[in-house]
């Protein structure tokens, strides 16, 4: 990798990291629920950009497709249908649950900072998954598909059954109220 493109990728990463932190803070700090949802979209989109700079285009595309494109749309949908107004929501007040959450997230954050400052983070594999190795193996999409549909076929199928269960449950809950009404 040349000096220039090395410098560029570092610059892009740090710019993205800064933006993501800022936008994530805005998601939590915004008083207006719609604002929070829109910031969440931007946040997930920028995260996908980080994946793309890691040459992991498949994960980046799936990230935008599923989270930014589908999940948050439904959030936004619900917020708009309920027409939540800022004054109907409690602001940032420190009750017991919030305090516990805050303390736990701060502890988690310090552990992560400590680990990354202390040196090589654990749990990242043996370093054989370089960009070149993945390209030689047939590309990102191919390798993910092979792993998912051979070694991890049972977890994969179980996850889809779990989602199916959730869908059936949602339909059952939605149907219950209309039983005694004429169709």
């Amino acid at each position, binding site marked *: 990798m*040349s000096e220039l493109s090395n410098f560029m990728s570092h610059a892009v990463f740090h710019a993205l990291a800064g933006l993501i932190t800022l936008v994530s803070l805005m998601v939590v700090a915004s008083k207006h629920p719609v604002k929070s949802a829109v910031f969440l979209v931007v946040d997930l989109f920028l995260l996908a950009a980080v994946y793309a700079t890691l040459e992991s285009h498949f994960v980046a595309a799936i990230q935008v*497709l599923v989270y930014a494109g589908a999940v948050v749309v439904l959030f936004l*949908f619900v917020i*708009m249908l309920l027409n939540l107004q800022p004054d109907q929501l409690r602001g940032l007040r420190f009750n017991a649950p919030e305090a516990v959450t805050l303390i736990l997230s701060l502890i988690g954050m310090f552990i992560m900072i400590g680990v990354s400052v202390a040196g090589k983070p654990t749990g990242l594999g043996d370093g054989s998954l370089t960009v070149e190795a993945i390209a030689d193996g047939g590309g990102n999409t191919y390798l993910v598909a092979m792993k998912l549909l051979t070694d991890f076929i049972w977890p994969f199928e179980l996850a889809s059954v779990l989602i199916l269960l959730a869908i059936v449950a949602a339909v059952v809950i939605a149907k219950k109220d209309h039983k005694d009404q004429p169709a």
Partner: protein
Amino acid sequence: MGLTADEFTVQFISTLLKFSILAVILLQVPPIMVLVERRIPAFMQRRKGPNRVGLFGFRIYGVLQSLADTIKLIFKEEVVPTGAHKAFYHLAPVFAVFPALMIAMAIPYGPDIQVFGHTIPLSVVRVDVGFLFIFAISSLAVYGVTIAGWASNNKYALLGSLRASAQMISYEIPLGMSLIPIVLIYGSLDLNKIVEAQTHIWKWGIFLSPISFVLFLIAMFAETNRTPFDLSEAEGELVAGFHTEYNSTKFAAFFLGEYVSMFVLSCLASTVFLGGWQVPFFDVRSLDQLVGFTGVGAFVGFGSLFMKAAFFMWLYVWVRWTIPRFRYDQLMSLGWKFMIPLGLINVVVTALALAAVRFS
């Protein structure tokens, strides 16, 4: 990313150039389509349509009508409705235009060209998961409509945007599902490779997977909110739907977003089902050597793709002035009860057929 500084510079400059050219081309689509959308129905209904606007006494079939319309739109007074959510009201047109322009970057507009010893692909960015990229970005198109309707503080706008977002989410599924057989057949998510595989007319997607083509065509109309699926701006019920409160340049931005995404989806349909930049019975890449001038093949390839996309654009207009609008429940039952099951069956049948061919 093992790039030398030289390659990096070439890539940077060529991407910038390609992007500028593409942006200029895409910005010409709405004015042309506005005129087409008034002249073709006039022809269908035996009227004359707008043919008066001219310059210095030359009318040239009313071509300048679009210019006049554009000038009118730009110089109109901007009225922001009282009670509108200001920031989102101004941001919504951006959300509407951005995905349309971004997915245009992944379409291969022609075969690779050789310039000064460098191979330059004729798509702005060459993504090896082109399909997923396009779906990912086009799934963001919902936000423009949704936020526009909500921020306008208008009942009709909100109803229009709710309809539009439900419709776009519903039809995204058959749109994606219709292309899975194509991915299975050509064995790649890379649009460039899919085009290169369609060397012969019988290897075009439309012949290998005709059901996919029909599903894609229907979902394409629904995704761009065009008649017969323009429930989101049904003028008989909702004034103008999600853009009721928009005027002047912001209204023009919604126009731009709609026509550009129509054009890009037309390009995608041509790329996947009609062989993209390939010309039937002829290899455009051999043209460079035949004529002895580099870039001729790419130019012909681009022309070929453009003609195919123009056909789909004309189809949009043709259908708009032929078929009346669906009712909302009809729209939903068509999407969920007909297209998704058919799409699933199509995937399974294609997979079985491919397995039978490969393992026999």
